[in-house]
């Protein structure tokens, strides 16, 4: 909400400067988005009228606007989307200086010269609106310096939190400044409606969605237009002057926070009904759009049909124009959720709906109407022309909170007495009555967000500030502590991967259909977002491969060989409506000439790091080359997979190197960790024997090793594997070194050879292995 500070100052009894106002709001926890200080505009910046608009011959998004600057017609290039013939705009011609210091120069844009620029409100320093050129009032005379049309104002732009409707009004903001600066408020005068005139025929049918509904006829003469000060203020607030009747509704909304709507009385055919729309009904709103209504739309209807989308936007048929001589002024409180959903449904979040959706107090309904009535009377001597219709369906509930000051003191960690509360809270409109050991606080109608002692604590500290609150750590006496093993394990795993030179990456959990289909995955097996930001991020990934692949392709030129890894929860659907399983997964992707060995090294390091006994189970996965594909087993449980990616999945990957991929369930890896156990070490020297055997290629080293180790005849280490047709069809040679020792004494060569032959026999029986000679 933009608050021009001269206007805001109307509601304070003494002058407060802009800087102090902004600081006071911030101290109260109200977010000041921007403070715009008024700058006097260069007098060369003038009003102009658009005469003709033509498409720029060389640019789709640009127009050539022929404008009249009071003396000549000139042609300028403009890209704003809101140009209209007849529109009054601000022209900054060559030589004019903008508030930011830019001096306009003759520009040639895509071959068309432009001796000036049509300015946005932001470029003129009048607001931060840069959505299009700033429209000037229709009566602005071409050639008039803009500084004579708008008097620049200091403006404070605040962001309003969702539970404070009152901060969407100048009196609400003034209340905060008043409390922070100890400057008394000055409430704007109001007019009491008379009881004269005929009663209005109105029926409220949608009682559940209406809290209060007020309507009154007002006769007025608009011929003198809106006063310049008011136009300036509306402009500075980011509103546009339309005509006197409408301007006063907007002006009052900004002052009081109560949105008002004016119907042209001559165009309304009583009786009026407030009800939900029927399917098939339509309403042309003020913006000229014909809207299809649904039974969730709250509408105002006259004899001929809908005339207002309640709380959101009025209808075209009953629009007030400069010629209107009698209006029906509506002030209401509609159900917040109803209005919010209507605004969302119709894509029409207006200044009015933003206020209604916060559930406006019914006291404000009345106050807003009375203030507007006063303004109409003062501005043009308007007269009430009908009896006031006022139906109150949800009377205001006044909250009283009884609170022990020591409770507030405990929350805030500072001493707070009844006297402190009695002194401070009234600054924000609360009434405080001290009782024996507590105080009774009456909450003003304008603060329905305050219901608990904790809310009062917040109000109090907003006035005091947090600077005096001491700082200390909480005391702590737990009954027991549960040792956390997850993080140390995670760090061990990451350190092992880091030592291998791998980069940790973080990638999005949501992936595109293309990323999944790249690996032949079925889309419908994946959970999908109902409302993704873009199709790039629509599906919940079940493994890390697609994301790592995308990261690898993007970084493929980084080095000839490198690897990346990620640890992240992935999403495995269960029953519809149930939360998915979310195992924590580790994915490693390595680009290398020896890609499989790269990921195998990672697996071996992890296996050693966790003192685990992970085995491979040769299993084909579609993502991998058939001969480079295995499951990773802990006992009988599959806890991951490893392999080299099949070239057909390497779309977009230019390098000659291969890609190795390792995937592990992290927590299952941690569970595979075995405790370390002591094994006796022989005092006597070991004897070594090298052995090479020829076996079928599907026999795995891991099994040979386990078989030998389990005999306790020797320790064994891998030397090499060798593949050649001379060994026999589909055979390979495995070479190993055996280490033999005894705990009792030095082993003799004879004993060692005996053990060796036992091992040879065992390997022959178990694996059909023949010693290689």
């Amino acid at each position, binding site marked *: 909400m933009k608050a021009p500070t001269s206007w805001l100052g109307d509601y304070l009894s003494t002058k407060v400067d802009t800087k102090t106002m902004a600081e006071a709001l*911030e101290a109260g926890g109200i977010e000041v988005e921007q403070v715009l200080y008024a700058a006097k505009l260069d007098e060369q910046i003038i009003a102009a009228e658009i005469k003709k608009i033509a498409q720029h011959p060389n640019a789709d998004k640009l127009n050539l606007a022929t404008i009249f600057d009071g003396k000549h017609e000139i042609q300028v290039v403009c890209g704003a989307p809101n140009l209209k013939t007849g529109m009054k705009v601000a022209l900054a011609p060559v030589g004019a200086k903008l508030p930011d210091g830019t001096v306009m120069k003759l520009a040639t844009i895509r071959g068309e010269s432009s001796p000036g620029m049509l300015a946005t409100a932001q470029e003129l320093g009048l607001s931060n609106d840069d959505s299009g050129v700033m429209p000037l009032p229709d009566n602005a005379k071409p050639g008039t310096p803009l500084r004579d049309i708008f008097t620049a104002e200091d403006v404070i732009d605040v962001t309003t939190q969702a539970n404070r409707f009152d901060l969407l009004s100048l009196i609400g903001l003034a209340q905060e400044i008043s409390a922070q600066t100890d400057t008394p408020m000055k409430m704007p005068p109001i007019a009491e409606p008379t009881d004269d005139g005929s009663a209005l025929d109105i029926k409220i049918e949608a009682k559940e969605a209406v809290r209060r509904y007020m309507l009154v006829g007002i006769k007025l003469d608009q011929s003198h237009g809106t006063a310049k000060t008011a136009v300036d203020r509306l402009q500075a607030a980011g509103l546009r002057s339309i005509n006197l009747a409408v301007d006063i509704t907007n002006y009052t909304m900004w002052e009081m926070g109560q949105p008002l709507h004016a119907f042209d009385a001559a165009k309304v055919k009583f009786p009026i009904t407030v009800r939900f729309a029927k399917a098939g009904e339509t309403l042309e709103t003020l913006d000229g759009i014909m809207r299809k209504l649904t039974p969730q739309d709250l509408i105002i209807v006259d004899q001929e049909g809908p005339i207002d989308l309640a709380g959101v936007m009025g209808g075209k048929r009953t629009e007030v124009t400069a010629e209107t001589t009698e209006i029906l002024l509506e002030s209401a409180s509609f159900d*917040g959720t109803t209005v919010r959903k209507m605004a969302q449904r119709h894509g029409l979040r207006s200044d009015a709906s933003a206020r209604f959706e916060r559930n406006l107090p019914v006291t404000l309904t009345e106050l807003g109407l009375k203030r507007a009535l006063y303004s109409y009377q003062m501005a043009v001597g308007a007269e009430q022309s009908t009896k006031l219709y006022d139906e109150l369906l949800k009377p205001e509930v006044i909250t009283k909170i009884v609170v022990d000051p020591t409770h507030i003191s405990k929350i805030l960690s500072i001493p707070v007495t009844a006297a402190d509360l009695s002194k401070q809270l009234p600054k924000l409109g609360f009434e405080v009555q001290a009782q024996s050991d507590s105080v009774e606080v009456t909450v003003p109608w304008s603060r329905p967000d305050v219901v608990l002692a904790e809310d009062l604590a917040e109000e109090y500290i907003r006035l005091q500030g947090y600077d005096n*609150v001491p700082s200390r750590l*909480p005391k702590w006496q737990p009954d027991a*502590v549960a040792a956390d093993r997850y993080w140390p394990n995670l760090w061990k795993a990451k350190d092992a991967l880091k030592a291998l030179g791998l980069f940790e990456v973080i990638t999005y959990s949501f992936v595109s259909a293309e990323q999944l289909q790249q690996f032949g995955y079925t889309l419908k097996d994946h959970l999908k977002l109902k409302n*993704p930001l873009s199709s790039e991020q629509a599906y*919940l990934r079940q493994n890390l491969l697609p994301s790592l692949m995308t990261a690898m392709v993007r*970084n493929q030129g980084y080095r000839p060989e490198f690897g990346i890894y990620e640890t992240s929860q992935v999403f495995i659907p269960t029953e519809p409506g149930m939360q998915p399983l979310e195992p924590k997964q580790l994915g490693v992707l390595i680009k290398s000439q020896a890609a499989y060995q790269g990921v195998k090294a990672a697996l071996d390091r992890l296996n050693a790091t966790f003192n685990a006994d992970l085995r491979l189970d040769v299993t084909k996965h579609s993502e991998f080359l058939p001969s480079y594909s295995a499951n990773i087993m802990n006992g009988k449980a599959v806890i991951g997979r490893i392999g080299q990616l099949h070239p057909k999945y390497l779309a977009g990957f230019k390098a000659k190197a291969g890609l190795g991929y390792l995937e592990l369930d992290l927590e299952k890896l941690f569970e595979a960790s075995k405790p370390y156990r002591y094994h006796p070490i022989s005092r006597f020297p070991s004897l070594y024997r090298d052995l090479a055997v020829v076996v079928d290629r599907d026999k795995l080293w891991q099994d040979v090793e386990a078989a030998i180790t389990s005999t306790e005849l020797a320790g064994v280490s891998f030397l090499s594997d060798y593949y050649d047709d001379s060994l026999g069809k589909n055979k390979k040679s495995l070479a190993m070194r055996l280490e033999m020792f005894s705990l009792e004494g030095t082993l003799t060569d004879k004993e060692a050879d005996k053990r060796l032959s036992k091992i040879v026999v065992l390997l022959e029986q178990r694996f059909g292995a023949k010693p290689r000679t």
Partner: protein
Amino acid sequence: MNPTELIKKAEDSIAKVDSLAALEDLRVKYLGRSGELTLYLRGIGKLPKSERAQAGETANKARIRLSETIETKQQELEQSELAKMMDTTNIDLSAPAGMPIGHDHPISSLLNDIVRLYWQMGFQVVQGPEIETPWYNFEALNIPADHPARDMQDTFYLDDGNLPRTHTSGMQIRHMEQTKPPIRIISPGKVYRNEDEDARHIWSFMQMEGLVVDEGIGVAELKGTLLALVRGILGDKMEIRLRPNYFPYTEPSIEIDASCVVCHGKGCGLCSHTGWVELLGSGMVHPQVLKNVGIDPVKYSGFAFGVGLERLAAVKYQVPDLREFWRPNLKFLEQF
């Protein structure tokens, strides 16, 4: 040649030798298996008996003397070769060696630091599902279906009504359902917001929330705990500032600003000349939230806080664009 002549000849040669290899050649020449002195010694048996003893003694003395001379010369030569070697440079001591190390992601390093810091303060780390039910993400946190605050957190939804969590607060609820006070936890993890990205906003980020519930917890404990976080992560010189704010699940709600890491409060470009940067949201747990999990809000009170780790990392490492953390670009990641 008799031993005396041999020795003289050998000693002359040894004196001229200037390398260990040449010295070894001389040793072989005289003392080797078929060295001249060795052969002489072997020939003594063929001498007349009367001469043998004398010749043997002379030859043996000569052998010992020659051995000693060679030994001495060898030591001399070794010394001088060592001296020469020590004077020669054939290595660039600064040349890189071994395999390059990998890189932890800066966000996970930061999280690791935070976990260790909070362990020091006795906090437990809890983790949970990223796909939450509306109850745990919203209702239990005092954000009913029609609450306008749901607009503050633009939410993704799955078809079945569950949603990628918009904060990790759901874990606080789950923890409080299981555990009675005293409670002190942090809950880190990925969260998701359906909003457009720019340099200061990302739709998927790493959040860390904290919760303390016990008797006698007030704003002072919140302040101390968050000061410890800010100093632990950003440096011991840091200060914090508390400002009122609004969140539906805390009352009072408190915004925490940290003193600027660059200018330490004096004002500079990074902090828009205010001396402070907005860092995180916090507050005293709303009594309704405690009631929702069956904790008596009269007896117990608590505070909660939440910080976006990318935001914290951006402040710590002065990264101007939060999107860098998620790209992933190895040229960026190798800097950490």
